[in-house]
């Protein structure tokens, strides 16, 4: 019998037949697992879903789908709160505002991650790579300050870790280069106020709230008056920042004024020994709040209604009605998009103004953005898959793709990438502002504290009460509420 040598075709056929049962068996072993995540409906989470659909493959070999339940921002808290408290156990992961951590941790809904991180070298590497301000604000409860996190690195001996950054946000200045770089405008401004208009982003490093006020006065124009190289086609306004009753729209900017003027908010990290009375209504806070109120004089008239939120000022800026605003980085993408913005080719970004104190400019701001967390009712396999999703999202490759798509990253290695600043026009400012971030309270009483405060701030913004009265009311309310909760003791 003649032995014929095997042809390549026959060899492949034999190999295929031999491997087939194993391939079939492997696909039979692979489980279908859905990681359902509640998230606000906006760009950063939409990108996460699209990118997961396109690129995510579970290392376990299971068929893991990330399925994001997009919830409109105004209903986001209500929907998440209702879902968690109803016990429906619908979500495996949740994008949570950092301030909600205490509420949902103490209700037993968010999973403590210390042991899981300690057992996983990849997660430890991520924790060591995260910016300390984000670990402090997004992950620790009870809150550990960013300074402490920075001092010890990971792991901090007293920290309980719960979340990872889904989208870290800071606020920056959006300004019009056609106005701030206009020679005629600059000459008029210099004649009136003795300094140049800041044209390049670097020029804004020395800008204080006093300068901001001057921009407000200088750029206020009536319809038909000269503006830059043209004329104003309607009333035009110099400056604006958030000052609105809904959500946290006033608090986020007013807290910055408190901190920058040397004041502060009730300090949860030293409870029960930190008072509210005398801190919340301190002379520094009253001065800071009064400055915030004074500067609203140069904002568009919607400021007087207490409804000048982050979306309203973004819209007015895109409509070409304001020279400069302070707003979140997250809202920058539509501003440079020709499809949505009239000033897309004239918008630039800079650090926000600060307060000159002891010869230095203080730019302390309130941390924005959101962490994402795991819920407590998942079995070990789902937890493992969810943590793999975390690792995928916080891998450098994914984070770079997110930043390039208009998002942001909390990874220091991404922020330090030599090309980082070229990926978006606000990246340099976002990175600079991360150093100035503090967060507000994370305790379960957060929503009551915020709601009452927003209402009192709104009364002051609409001229019904003074800054002092508003802060006295807030301090008295916080003192009573936090004493009842055992968070303030004599």
């Amino acid at each position, binding site marked *: 019998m003649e032995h014929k040598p095997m042809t390549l075709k026959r060899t492949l056929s034999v190999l295929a037949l031999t491997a087939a049962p194993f391939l079939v068996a492997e696909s039979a072993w692979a489980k279908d697992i859905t990681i359902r995540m509640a998230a606000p409906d906006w760009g950063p989470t939409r990108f996460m879903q699209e990118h997961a659909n396109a690129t995510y493959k579970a290392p376990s070999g299971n068929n893991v789908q990330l399925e994001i339940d997009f919830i409109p921002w105004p209903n986001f808290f*209500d929907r998440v*709160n209702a879902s968690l*408290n109803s016990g429906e156990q619908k979500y495996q992961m949740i994008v949570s505002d950092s301030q909600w951590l205490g*509420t949902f941790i*103490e*209700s*037993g809904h968010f999973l403590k991650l210390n042991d899981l991180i300690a057992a996983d070298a990849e997660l430890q590497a991520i924790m060591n790579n995260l910016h300390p301000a984000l670990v402090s604000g997004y992950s620790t409860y009870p809150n550990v300050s960013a300074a402490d996190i920075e001092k010890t690195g990971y792991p901090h001996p007293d920290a309980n870790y719960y979340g990872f950054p889904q989208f870290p946000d800071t606020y920056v200045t959006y300004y019009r280069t056609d106005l701030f770089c206009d020679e005629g405008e600059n000459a008029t401004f210099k004649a009136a106020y003795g300094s140049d208009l800041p044209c390049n982003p670097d020029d804004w490093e020395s800008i204080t709230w006093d300068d901001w006020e001057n921009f407000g006065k200088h750029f206020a124009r*009536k319809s038909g008056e000269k503006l830059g190289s043209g004329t104003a086609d*309607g*009333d035009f*306004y110099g400056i604006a920042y958030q000052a*609105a*009753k*809904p959500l946290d729209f006033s608090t986020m900017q007013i807290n910055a004024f408190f901190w920058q003027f040397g004041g502060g908010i009730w300090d949860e990290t030293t409870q029960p020994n930190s008072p509210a009375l005398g801190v919340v209504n301190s002379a520094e806070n009253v001065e800071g709040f009064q400055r915030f109120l004074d500067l609203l004089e140069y904002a*568009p*008239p*919607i400021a*007087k*209604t*207490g*409804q000048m939120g982050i979306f309203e000022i973004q819209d*007015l800026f895109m*409509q070409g*009605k304001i020279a400069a605003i302070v707003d979140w980085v997250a809202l920058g993408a539509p501003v440079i998009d020709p499809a949505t913005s009239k000033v897309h080719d004239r918008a630039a970004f800079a650090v926000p103004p600060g307060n000159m104190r002891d010869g230095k400019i203080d730019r302390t701001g309130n941390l924005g953005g959101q962490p994402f967390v795991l819920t407590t009712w998942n079995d070990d396999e789902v937890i493992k898959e969810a943590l793999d999703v975390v690792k995928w999202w916080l891998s450098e490759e994914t984070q770079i793709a997110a930043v390039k798509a208009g998002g942001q990253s909390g990874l220091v290695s991404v922020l330090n990438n030599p090309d980082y600043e070229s990926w978006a026009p606000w990246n340099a400012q976002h990175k600079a502002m991360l150093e100035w971030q503090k967060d507000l309270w994370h305790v*379960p009483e957060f*929503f*009551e504290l915020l*709601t009452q405060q927003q*209402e009192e701030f*709104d*009364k002051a*913004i*609409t*001229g*019904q*009460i003074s800054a002092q009265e508003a802060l006295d009311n807030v301090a008295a309310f916080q003192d009573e509420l936090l004493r009842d909760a055992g968070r303030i003791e004599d």
Partner: protein
Amino acid sequence: MADLNTSGAGAVSGAGSVAKSGGLLAWLNAPERRGPLLVAPALITLFVMNIFPLLWSFGLSFFNYRANRLTVPSFKGLDNYEKVLTDPVVWERFQTTGIIVGASVTLQLIFGFLLALLFAKTFPLRRILLMLVLAPMMLSFVSVAIFFKLFYDPTLGLLSWAIGLFTGEPFILLATPAGSIAAIVIADAWMWSPFVMLLVLAGLVSVPTYLYEAAEIDRASPWRRFRTITFPYIKSLLLLALLFRTIETFKLFDLSFLITGGGPGASTETVAIYAYRLGFQFFRTSQASALAYLILFVVIVLTSIYLYIVNRRNEEG
């Protein structure tokens, strides 16, 4: 008789055999079960979605339950009702609600009545205009609120632009408590005046024309014709409109929440918004339930008056 008995027995035996041969479906399809089965889905839905939550929240109003706490609720009797009734904020919100209800319902009655008088006559394009006038009450609250929010916007809004043509300054209606209440009243009246018009129009077209002819022969003045002929016919319907709109406006939430957010401060915060805030922002779930039951009590009183008037009208009819 024998035939009848035989046929009756045969029918019973036939039904039994059908039940045997058709099984569960035939048993369910039996005439005595068909009715209850047909209404069962509606009753179950009503119980699950309406009656059960109603009873549950009523029970909660006697405990100290907070939806964002894990602590086991304890029985507190009437404490929550006492807290709500002695809370000055609740009475402020009731006052705000009363002002909005009073102003809005008055405007709705006036404009609804005038529109009904207009559309009771025949004129060219009447049908098309009637459809347009009825459109606001068919829109969703959210659409109306967004429309008015943009309309009132001091920088981009139509109202500010129009007034600015005369004053040279932007008009900021929502900057003051009075202006904000006016803004909500206008939006609510715009939306619901057509409803009043529909009711009044139904009364106006039911007036027999011979009465007006007789009044004309008697040379009765227009005012006397209105007082003695028109008004008696529309009186009950006007009262119905008044009560129906009072009940609905008393529960006003959407327009105020969306146009002003309850501000400036809390000047346009109605009692319904306050109940929502107590429940979903302050998480005093039991207290919010107690307040909701107080609102329900007021609505029940108003509804009883409404039903009394309906019954009286039926008796008159």
